[in-house]
């Protein structure tokens, strides 16, 4: 068991240990670098940065939402609203990117493991986000119906008052898909 270098603090042994430590750091660095490169290239290949944008074509990167995209292009809202105008909140930067991240995680998990429901559906929370955005743009036009829904008491300009706009107006943003 007796090993010479461990028995004393001779300079030669220290140098050897420094050399070994540097080698270890170099190898570790290479590993970290390869990992970062693999992640980075995969992210680049998957057009990851496009998801930070407001470009509607980013939403059809994986083709699952082709019908929804095609329907939007034929809808009356096409000229005024893109996907993010309706599908992410606009009250704060943080909230917007939190919802984007949550969607991104859920969608990529579903697409990678192929375990999502067909046809795709709005989640209850996403529905709230969309309805909030209806009111964000159409607040004046919807004031009276929201007032009535609120028991004829004053209602905040961005409060849907429990109304579900898209129950009736389902076709305004996604027109015919075929």
């Amino acid at each position, binding site marked *: *068991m007796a*090993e010479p*270098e*461990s*028995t004393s603090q001779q300079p030669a042994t220290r140098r050897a240990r420094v050399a070994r*430590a540097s080698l*270890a750091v170099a*190898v*570790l660095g290479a*590993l*970290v670098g*390869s*990992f970062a490169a*693999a*992640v980075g*290239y*995969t992210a680049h*290949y*998957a057009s990851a940065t496009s998801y930070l944008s407001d470009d509607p074509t980013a939403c059809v990167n*994986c*083709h*699952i939402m*082709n019908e929804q995209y095609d329907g939007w292009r034929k809808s009356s809202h096409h000229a005024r609203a893109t996907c993010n105008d309706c599908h992410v909140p606009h009250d704060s930067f943080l909230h917007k990117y939190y919802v984007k991240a949550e969607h991104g995680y859920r969608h990529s998990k579903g*697409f*990678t493991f*192929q375990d999502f*429901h*067909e*046809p795709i*559906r709005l989640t209850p929370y996403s529905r709230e986000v969309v309805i909030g955005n209806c009111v964000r743009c159409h607040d004046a036009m919807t004031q009276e119906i929201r007032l009535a829904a609120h028991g004829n008491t004053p209602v905040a300009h961005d409060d849907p008052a429990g109304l579900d706009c898209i129950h009736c107006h*389902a076709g305004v943003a996604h027109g015919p898909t*075929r």
Partner: protein
Amino acid sequence: MTLNRSRRPGQRLAFSRVAVFAVAAIAFGAGTVVAMMLYENIRTRKEESRHTAVRIAAIDETTIDPAEWGKNFPRQYDGYKRTADNAKARFRWSDGRPPEDALHTGAGESKADEGKAESKLESNPRLKTMFKGYAFAIDYRERRGHAFMLDDQRDTERVKQRPQPGACLNCHASNVVAYREAGLEHGAAGALSDPLHSETGLEQLFAGWEHVNQLSYADATALVSHPVTCLDCHDPDSMRLRITRPAFMEGIAALAASNEPLPHLPSIEKWRRGNRATPYDANELAGRQEMRSLSCAQCHVEYYFKGDQKRLTFPWLRGLKMEQMEAYYDEVDWADWTHADSGTRVLKAQHPEFELWSQGIHARSGVSCADCHMPYMREGAMKFTDHQVQTPMAHVNLSCQTCHNYTESEIQSRVDQIQSRTKAHLDRAEIAVVELILAIRDAREAGATDAELQSARALHRKAQWRADFINAENSMGFHAPAESLRIIGEAIDYARQGIAEVAKLRPKQVAASGGREG
């Protein structure tokens, strides 16, 4: 432990450094592997979105074997083969209950029934009375998937015990090549390799079809080897949907020339606004969405064999409604057979799915047969049509939820409601028709003359045609719920009027026997 304690500090430090290094190496290595796996997954999805088909086998107008087409279109071929394993329709009309509650009828137990679909005559004995004197009273079974169409036809006692013409083959086999070969043998010009929709191709098809219609069924069925296959619906060159059945070409042209409004077939409405110089041709004029229904309408329709040539004919000259077809049959004085008990010259309805669908809200809204019965499916980023043609209730999410934003159980219960209502009233209609048949029989036996029975028989013909129309149609009213109940309502009315007519003749005898179901 003693060993560890005996180690010196430097040694322990070196050991823990190695451990840290190893853990880091394993962690980053594993991370890299996961990243590469993700890369591979994304790459696969991207590839899927680029390629929908790889052409391996050469396909042309002579390629009957679906396995050859399957080399190029494996997903479609898989679904096509699975029509042998179709889900049972949730609502089987002959017993009116979902399969799990169905009474066991004994079908499939005896030697003769082995491997066959359940007998409708066993589960609904009223049909034996209604079809008395006709082949359908001998053998009449539940529907099965496309895979069984040829075997079931060769195997049915209707064909074995009663001689049937080759015209039957029109809808139970892949017959395009067989017809064309027969056409070439009988003087048609060109070669089998000509495109079907060329002048020579169509000449071969029509000449062969006219010849095969008149053969005996045994001779005709020897010419074919497959149930309906790829080239019966698809152009081998472009894969476009196409019409291949001569009877449909004639039928749809006659329908187009009628005055019946057809808002669900916009290409016909458009053709009518033109100069009508050439007959309506679906292959030339129908849009893709229309073809997704018209392809099916080549077979899932009412028909009869016209004249000595046994020319397969669709009775659409006035329109697609039940009474328009009846009026056509009355005009040409057609009867499928003379009823053994009542002596009435009656009609047999044959799976009029296209006609009933045409009266419903789905047709009116532009929903095709394929939208529900062959919905789009996904495998990764690839989208394709499910070729396992079957009840939409087997995949409510793909068929219904694409448009109807309700839960599957809600949609299923809506369908059940429509079908239960239809079934309940159809039962009443069939009971009324059977009572009328027995009333006429008893009056005959008691000496009523043909002249005396004329009005009752006319009502029997009308009532039975209506009840059978909904019975033979394979959606239990779903394809057009209000139209179905209208037709059933008329059936009940005419049957009861008929019973009243008989009662007028010989009140005493009828009072003794009418209304008895035997």
